[in-house]
């Protein structure tokens, strides 16, 4: 009853309510999608195929060489699996936020803002579809193969680090999705811009850092925190030297980077909502 009257809620309760709102909205979309069940299987298959293409390219490259930038195929598999898993899971959970500009133009954001639920939860769950499971599913398959094929002694610290990087990576990509989408409050047609950070970032992380110019690697370490998704922790797991020669602490700092990204994305989202000008008009 206290909730019904809208008493002030603690931070934890607000977070729980945000998650609950996401679940409620996503459930509605899942139900709405049932109306078109026929194409669901086809779309899921297509999704698995299209998201696998990037790895097929890597495999084809390794038909002509056994090392790329000094890394073997199973090692690239680890890069690919972790990066695609993080991107795919983030896309499944919050990826719809990238259509914010369309939501604004269609007036759907106004409708979300009159509901007693966080607008961000609703935008992220908009058009939720399980077909987006395609990418994390195939990424998990590649990851499983690489973990067994790569020459690594899977001690508990490495296993723990791998688990931590999957979670942190998902959080970092989610923050990039949200932070990037926030630009659309000011620049409504900028949807494709954030593909550079999200999909572009994931493509970057499919390949070893040794392939790229040092400036670029530094940019995604100290600018956009992409290097924390998998490069830095995998350097530790695989026992490879850091091309930038950074202190070893960086290789364990992914959770911190994730927390920082969430903070920045959250502040940006709030600023965007304040600057929101309404649909139409």
């Amino acid at each position, binding site marked *: *009853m206290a*909730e*019904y*009257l*809208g008493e002030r809620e603690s931070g934890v309760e607000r977070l729980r309510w945000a998650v609950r*709102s996401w679940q*409620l909205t996503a459930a*509605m979309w899942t*139900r*709405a999608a049932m*109306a078109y069940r026929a194409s669901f299987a086809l779309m899921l298959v297509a999704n698995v195929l299209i998201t696998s293409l990037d790895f097929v390219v890597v495999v084809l490259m390794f038909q002509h060489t056994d090392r790329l930038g000094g890394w073997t195929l199973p090692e690239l598999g680890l890069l690919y699996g972790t990066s695609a898993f993080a991107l795919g899971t983030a896309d499944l959970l919050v990826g719809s936020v990238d259509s914010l500009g369309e939501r604004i133009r269609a*007036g759907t954001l*106004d*409708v979300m*803002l*009159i*509901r*007693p*639920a*966080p607008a961000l939860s609703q935008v992220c769950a908009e058009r939720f579809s399980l077909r987006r499971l395609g990418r994390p599913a195939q990424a998990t398959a590649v990851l499983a193969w690489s973990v067994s094929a790569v020459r690594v002694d899977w001690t508990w610290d490495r296993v723990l680090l791998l688990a931590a990087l999957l979670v942190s990576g998902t959080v970092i990509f989610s923050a990039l999705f949200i932070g990037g989408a926030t630009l659309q409050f000011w620049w409504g047609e900028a949807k494709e811009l954030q593909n550079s950070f999200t999909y572009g970032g994931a493509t970057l992380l499919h390949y070893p850092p040794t392939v790229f110019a040092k400036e670029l690697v530094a940019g995604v370490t100290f600018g956009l925190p992409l290097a924390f998704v998998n490069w830095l922790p995998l350097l530790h797991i695989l026992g490879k030297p850091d091309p930038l020669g950074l202190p070893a602490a960086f290789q364990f700092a992914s959770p911190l980077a994730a927390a920082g990204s969430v903070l920045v994305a959250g502040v940006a989202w709030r600023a965007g*909502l*304040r600057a*929101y*000008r*309404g*649909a139409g*008009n």
Partner: protein
Amino acid sequence: MALIELEDVARTFTIRAKVGRLRRERREVRAVDGLSFTVQAGECVGYIGPNGAGKSTTIKMLTGILVPSAGRLRVAGVDPARERTRLARRIGVVFGQRTTLWWDLPLRDSYELARRIYRIPDARYRANLDRCVELLELGPLLDTPVRQLSLGQRMRGDLAAALLHDPQVLYLDEPTIGLDVVSKVRVREFLREINTGAGTTVLLTTHDLTDIEQLCGRVMVIDHGRMVYDGGLDGLHATGQSERTLVVDLAGPSAPIEVPGARVVKVDGARQWLAFPAEDSAAPIVAAVAAGYPLLDLSVREPAIEDVIARMYAKVPIG
């Protein structure tokens, strides 16, 4: 008790307009410009003005969708911009041109979601749903996907969705736009019941003066973001000297019709337009025309808000 309070509220938008081929100029537009008013609990207020006057911007600030640039604003004891979700539980909103219902799902599912999102206690939810279903005759529609509903049916569905959580204030943005006459009547009846029966405060924007005549004891007129009139409907007609129009189709072209109580404002072939004061009855004029001229067809047009306001400007210089 004052439910809605505005004090010197303003909202400016920055518009980038194209100047010449490449240069763009930034310009500030004050959509709402120093607006102050109070609405008491249980009132039904019509909020009107020409397109772009700032009506929607006001409603959006009152719901917390838009953050005001300046001024103080309280609705149901809450600052909308600061505590939007808290406010959302206390207000109901219906956008005439935008549905809050789920397009592909049966009407019932949208209400079910509202129950959870608004955390409505079960007994309360059932009682409110039953009442809305009865008053709005939604029973046979509950299991129909929203996309299959007619505009009028959907509007009724939207009204119910906005009221399930017992809001203290109901905002309606053009609730009768595009509806047929029967649907309009039904929607108005329901709103009257909600306002006078349940005591819900109603703030209504509309282009249809009949909505206001039949529902609202008070009218606020806004133009260029400023309040230009706040008072009873009679006062508005008196100030604006609004006129209704009788459109008459005769058997053939004729000299301008001369009947008492009306004057011809336009002639186009066999069709003539006669203006008469909005508060007068049309019946004697129609009778006089029918008696003196070969009448084929006729219709009465209600005064458009724009005309009323335009005439207000002509009459009362706004200082």
